């Protein structure tokens, strides 16, 4: 009987064959945290030991509220910088780098076959590179800093088999929203999700990150794409160290297999207040909103900004909406600047924000007032996430958000492409 990616990858770490349901105690390869490092440091100090076990494994990126929006955030950032100096943590990325998940990938930490844990639920993103990556809590990360080990249950695996070519105007975001909408926010709870089938290999790396990132919205422990030349080429000059890709066996045992023909999928929108409340854009056509957000760790890369600029170039965003654009990292920002994408977006009336999480978590840079509605390319639309508990968030692809920004109401992007 064959094994899944999760069974093989965690088995390698445990140095013994394991099957779903078993608990293994293993040592991870990388540990990610962000502004929440301040809270993790506090927990770490409670442990009463002076030094982290292996500073080389720790990666810290300041991205959530950058630059500091208030004195208390400034204080936390300061404490994090002091801790980093004191513990000799060399993998530190201060406020000018961008969103942790993007920065982590760009700097070659997201590698096939590695076990990566992060104090952030969208740590699942690195499955796009064939890593086993999962989110954990703060005290758990503090404890792993100290002990260099964690117990993990080997998850069952849900396979998503994709074939067919998406229609014009349908992007990775629409596909993952459709899958989450059909199957529910808890469908993959505790599970590993393998994105496979002939269409999986057609996705760009950026698009794979969208799916792996949002696997978290189905409750998944991790998401996974088989690493191929797209990944290896990208890693060529970036990989931090050697890596060994891990693939599932052809006769692996799955909890279930979900089958999707991508050519049948239309542009999708997730409606308030859950990510699985998904409808085709045609059902929402004409719905007015106040603020658009293009960016975040889900959709702030070149292909996302490019399609938005293609739609908005030479035009003006509708006067009734404000449009915020936030490239996922400084590298993406620079690229979008050099290619003229930012110029087109700014001329169209968009506000270009510094790379980071920005308004995604409702702490600064575009917080919603009561009664306001946002249309966003982020991954989460929970009540109150971007500000007032009486605001609403709709989620869609960058193309849908850009087309909607032009018209001031939710719009099918296909007529602009």
């Amino acid at each position, binding site marked *: 009987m064959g094994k899944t990616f999760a069974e093989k990858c965690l088995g390698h770490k445990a140095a013994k064959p394991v099957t779903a349901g078993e608990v293994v105690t293993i040592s991870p390869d990388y540990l990610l945290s962000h502004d929440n490092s301040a809270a993790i440091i506090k927990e770490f100090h409670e442990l009463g030991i002076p030094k982290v076990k292996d500073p080389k494994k720790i990666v810290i990126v300041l991205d959530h509220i950058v630059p500091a929006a208030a004195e*208390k955030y400034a204080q936390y950032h300061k404490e994090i910088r002091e801790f980093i100096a004191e513990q000799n943590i060399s993998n530190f990325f201060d406020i000018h780098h961008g969103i942790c998940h993007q920065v982590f990938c760009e700097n070659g930490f997201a590698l096939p076959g590695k076990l990566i844990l992060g104090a952030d*639920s969208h740590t699942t993103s690195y499955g796009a590179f064939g890593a086993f990556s999962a*989110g954990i*809590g703060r005290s758990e990360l503090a404890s792993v800093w100290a002990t260099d080990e964690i117990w993990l249950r080997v998850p069952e695996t849900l396979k998503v088999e994709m074939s067919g070519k998406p229609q014009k105007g349908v992007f990775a975001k629409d596909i993952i929203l459709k899958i989450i909408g059909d199957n529910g*926010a808890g469908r993959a709870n505790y599970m590993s999700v393998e994105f496979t089938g002939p269409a999986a290999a057609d996705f760009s790396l950026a698009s794979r990150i969208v799916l792996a990132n949002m696997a978290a919205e189905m*409750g998944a422990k991790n998401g996974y794409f088989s690493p191929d030349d797209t990944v290896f080429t990208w890693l060529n000059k970036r990989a931090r160290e050697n890596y060994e890709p891990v693939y599932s066996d052809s006769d692996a045992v799955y909890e279930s297999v979900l089958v999707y023909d991508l050519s049948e999928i239309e542009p999708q929108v997730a409606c308030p207040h859950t990510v699985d409340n998904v409808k085709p854009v045609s059902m929402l056509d004409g719905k007015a909103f106040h603020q658009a957000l293009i960016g975040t760790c889900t959709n702030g890369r070149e292909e996302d900004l490019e399609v938005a600029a293609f739609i908005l170039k030479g035009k003006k965003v509708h006067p009734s909406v404000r449009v915020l654009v936030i490239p996922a990292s400084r590298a993406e920002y620079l690229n979008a600047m050099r290619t003229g994408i930012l110029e087109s977006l700014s001329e169209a009336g968009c506000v270009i924000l510094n790379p980071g999480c920005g308004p995604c978590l409702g702490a600064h840079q575009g917080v919603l007032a009561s009664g306001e509605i946002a249309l966003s390319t982020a991954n989460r639309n929970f009540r*109150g*996430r971007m500000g007032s508990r009486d605001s609403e968030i709709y989620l869609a692809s960058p193309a849908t958000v850009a087309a909607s920004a032009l018209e001031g109401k939710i719009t099918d992007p296909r007529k602009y492409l």
Partner: protein
Amino acid sequence: MKSGRVWKYGENINTDVIFPGKYTYSVLDPEEMAGHALEDLDPDFAGSVQPGDVVVAGKNFGCGSSREQAAACLKFAGVQAVIAKSFARIFFRNAINQGLSVIKCPEAVDGISDDEKIAIDFSAGKILAGEKVFSFPPLPDSVIGLLEAGGLIPYTKKKLKGDI
């Protein structure tokens, strides 16, 4: 065995309504955290919850963010346990790591009403609600060890000292 009042909610109760994201990097003090518990789900909760009360909910409780305050704020608010049909993975780990008891018991969720007074016997794996008794599988020893130590941090501390 402690008894308390039931606060019953629906399915997919997510971490943003349990503990809003806007506070995750600014509110670190336990008492202040408790004051924001369930703020965007039930604004009355934090003001009236009593020690020993129980949160009861449907499927996928705690889905969303990895923020540990979602578990911590309930514990600091005095909640003795969360009973749900199922839990989101990270929340489940966080709850145990914070020393908050989590009980998966779909029958109890269906059989218990909002505002009812219930008691929980952890060692016997029983929930007592008036005449009704619901059973749940007792937690594994390793998890009980964590809960008894008061959560992962005190547990790891003991371990590092060689006390476990």
